[in-house]
């Protein structure tokens, strides 16, 4: 039993790394474009289909397929900005309309995926070796995903803190009008942010591809988890999201072992509701007075 638990905790932590990256992307988009990207998990799903198509159907090397998926998903992000988000911003749509539009987008993406790739599970079917420390077994693919995700987060951190573009993204998130007065073009920053957000779904898709097989409804639970993590950590708070990701990762992984995966999803939602009730601003969020 302890072995089982240790394995579950380990897997939870490893999953937490990727979830942190997923939540970071959603949080960044929320912070800058002020849109809750409800189709974010669906974009990961789309990225996994891209990897599948390139690696299995077109017989490319898996690594190459994963690398190509990154810019492809970046472009998807830009397309979403121009086709879905720009019209919403231009019409000054209220938050409910925005949410409905993005929720509608999830249906469009899922059904499109079903038409193109069918409803069956699709995987790239590679087996990476299992390594073990005592009685704790770890899949190499999970380990790669974990360290890859942390490395990507570090890269993002440096980008946001050390470059003019990163600084512009952070200033737009804090005060749109002030940023405009500094000569920053909001439209360009929105596109950049959505491109980065899209690129991240490609990165996550690349890490997920050796672990999971994809199907048209693969993204839904990840959108939900990312959203829970973002709210749990405090909207717009990157560190809070990072901590929240590991909490959700471990809780769902442990409860899935002890009970079932359905219960695990329920538990994540229960934590979410409890946090909303007790600490609406999230773990590390700050109450906004304005």
């Amino acid at each position: 039993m302890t072995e089982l638990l240790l394995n579950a905790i380990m897997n939870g932590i490893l999953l937490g790394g990727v979830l942190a990256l997923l939540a970071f992307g959603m949080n960044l988009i929320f912070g800058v474009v002020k849109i809750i990207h409800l189709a974010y998990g669906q974009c990961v799903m789309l990225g996994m289909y891209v990897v599948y198509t390139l690696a299995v159907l077109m017989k490319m090397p898996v690594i190459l397929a994963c690398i190509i998926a990154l810019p492809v998903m970046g472009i998807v992000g830009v397309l979403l900005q121009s086709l879905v988000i720009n019209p919403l911003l231009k019409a000054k749509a209220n938050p409910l309309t925005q949410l409905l539009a993005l929720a509608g987008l999830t249906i469009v993406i899922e059904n499109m995926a079903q038409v193109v790739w069918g409803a069956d599970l699709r995987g790239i079917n590679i087996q990476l070796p299992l390594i073990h420390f005592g009685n704790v077994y770890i899949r190499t693919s999970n380990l790669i995903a974990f360290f890859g995700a942390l490395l990507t987060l570090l890269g993002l951190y440096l980008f946001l803190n050390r470059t003019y573009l990163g600084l512009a993204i952070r200033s737009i998130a804090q005060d749109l009008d002030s940023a405009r007065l500094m000569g920053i073009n909001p439209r360009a920053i929105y596109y950049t942010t959505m491109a980065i957000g899209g690129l991240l779904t490609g990165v996550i898709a690349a890490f997920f591809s050796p672990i999971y097989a994809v199907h048209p409804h693969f993204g839904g639970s990840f959108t939900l988890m990312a959203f829970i993590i973002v709210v749990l950590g405090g909207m717009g708070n990157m560190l809070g999201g990072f901590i929240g990701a590991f909490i959700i990762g471990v809780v769902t992984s442990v409860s899935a072992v002890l009970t079932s995966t359905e219960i695990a999803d329920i538990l994540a939602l229960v934590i979410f509701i409890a946090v909303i009730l007790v600490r609406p601003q999230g773990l590390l969020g700050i109450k906004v007075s304005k």
Partner: protein
Amino acid sequence: MLEIQNLNVYYGEFQALFNLSLRVPEGETVITVGPNGSGKSTLLKAISGLLLPRSGTVTFLGERIDHLPAHEIVERGIAHVPEGGRLFANLTVLENLKVGSYLKRARSEFSATLKEIYRLFPILDERKKQLADTLSGGERQMLSIARSLMSRPKLILLDEPSSGLAPRIVSRVFEFVHQIKVQGYAILMVEQNVRKALQLSERAYLIESGRVHKEGTRQSFLEDPYIKKAYIGL
């Protein structure tokens, strides 16, 4: 340098400025006087592009700028210091200054401008690693003005630089403004502390209910009985 003619600005159906005309000559400091809600801040926002005027013209250095977006107006050399400073609270002092030099033409001169800023405002050098949020009211105002200078502007729009500050600090803020003035920048200032602001300026405009009611030299404002009674309190 800046020439505004017959400007009409609306918030939805509400008209905030009526046929307003105003001029800021090169190197001069111009102050607008008027009660709260008379449209003075609106005027600054319409110049810097945060608001689009419905009609009228804004000409800067011989070029129409009234339909440009805000980020392109900064590019042309107008810096707007909004009321309350509007700093990026979660960025450090240095990062705030860095965002100030976001424009391509300002970036290449970042180090030189920064050195100049630190010479003018040594306290910002000391506090450069602190979050802007942790600064005192006067320091914030200083940082906000310094941030706008980082874009290497020719004209600075100052919206109530002394608002919300303790009287002791107000004098210091006017000292900063004076320092900037002697550097040769043109300044268009909205300010409630009319007596202090007039001391710094060459010309003034009285704006009430979105209309210019009087324009003239500093002297003519200081001697006007109505201005004295309503705004200077003598």
